């Protein structure tokens, strides 16, 4: 009897382990999900594995966001699961870590914003002198730190922009574009995966 129980428990674990990826992506049938959660509640190994698979899933989800893969382009259940999906108990710590990581990211954005404000303050005289002359609009842009010089050049070329200042210590550049191209250039920059922030330099002075 003992032997049978051990064998049964072993196969439950093996089957649970093999189903974990689809538990994480939220596509298991209800009965499979309930069974797996029962096992997960008492199996530390599966909890660790689920946490690792959750990280993997999150990385793919981030890629999908970068690829502009909208929910409609992806599987509808995947989206629902990501939004509401039941999470294994062992994931609470990982979620907390991700929350902290999110906070750190928001802090980084705040620092960047501060950099932009300081940059604007420092360069206000240039703006007031150049703007009325019709030489073009000024945009403050923060690139992703991984952006290469070649990518930056290509962006400038395709958007018909010119770097006229920067980088500041916080990595902010100032770009000049023709007045009539400003809206299109800003839109194009915002759409680029290499650009993190775009701010119209003139907007602060002329609300």
């Amino acid at each position, binding site marked *: 009897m003992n032997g049978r129980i051990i064998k049964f428990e072993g196969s439950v674990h093996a089957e649970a*382990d*093999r*189903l974990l*990826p*689809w538990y994480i*992506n*939220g*596509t*298991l049938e209800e009965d499979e999900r309930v069974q797996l959660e029962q096992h997960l509640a008492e199996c530390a190994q599966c909890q*660790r*594995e689920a*946490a*690792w*698979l959750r*990280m*993997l*899933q999150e*990385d*793919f*989800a981030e*890629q*999908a*966001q970068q*690829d*502009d*893969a*909208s*929910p*409609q*382009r*992806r*599987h*509808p*259940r*995947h*989206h629902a*699961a*990501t939004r509401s999906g039941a999470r294994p108990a062992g994931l609470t*710590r*990982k979620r907390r*870590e991700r929350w902290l*990581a999110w906070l750190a990211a928001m802090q980084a*954005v705040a620092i960047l*914003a501060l950099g*932009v404000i300081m940059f604007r303050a420092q360069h206000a005289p240039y703006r007031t002198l150049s703007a009325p002359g019709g030489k073009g609009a000024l945009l403050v842009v923060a690139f992703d730190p991984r952006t290469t010089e070649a990518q930056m050049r290509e962006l400038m070329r395709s958007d018909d922009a010119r770097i006229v200042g920067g980088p500041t210590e916080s990595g902010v550049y100032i770009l000049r574009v023709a007045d009539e191209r400003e809206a299109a250039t800003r839109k194009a920059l*915002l*759409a680029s995966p290499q*650009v*993190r*922030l*775009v*701010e*119209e330099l003139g907007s602060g002075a002329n609300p």
Partner: protein
Amino acid sequence: MRKKQADPAGENGVSIDGEAVLLDRVAAEEKDAFEALYRLYRPRLQRFLSGVIKQPASVGEILDDTMMVVWRKAYTFNHRSKVSTWIFAIAYRQSLKALRRLGEPEVFETSEGSDVSMPGPDDALQHQELRKHLDDALGTLSPEQRAVIELTYYFGYACSEIAAIMACPVDTVKTRMFYARRKLKASLASRREAI
């Protein structure tokens, strides 16, 4: 301050039924329907094929081959599966055909010595490593294993749907995923040791 945001205009609001109607129109050789279907599926197929074959230069060609089959075989779609499953199945077959042409091996179902002890997931560094090395680690998988990973995590398919796309039993999908996970971890662990 204007923050960069995902473009909501990029969303394609075509329902599952809408896709089936579109494919019916393709079967009736309506070219505008085919163009709409092509536009709808090109980003998804580009991503899927890139993930499976890992040869960017060949992706465009396989995508075109896939859509050519969709055009020619649309009349065989029997509405028993979703349009996406049907099209992904074609793309998967086309990618395997291309890999054969390119002389790539198709199936590695064994662990190939990758049975290493698994690193613990509760290390904050591990996520950074995963992000940094995931693409390289995916390159160590077989095309079949990459397909399972992509279809599960990027596209969010259920195991049974992946089995339909890959024309194999559900257990085979589970096995491929099992070894894919092992290999990924082994690859990431070896990269960590190399640092």
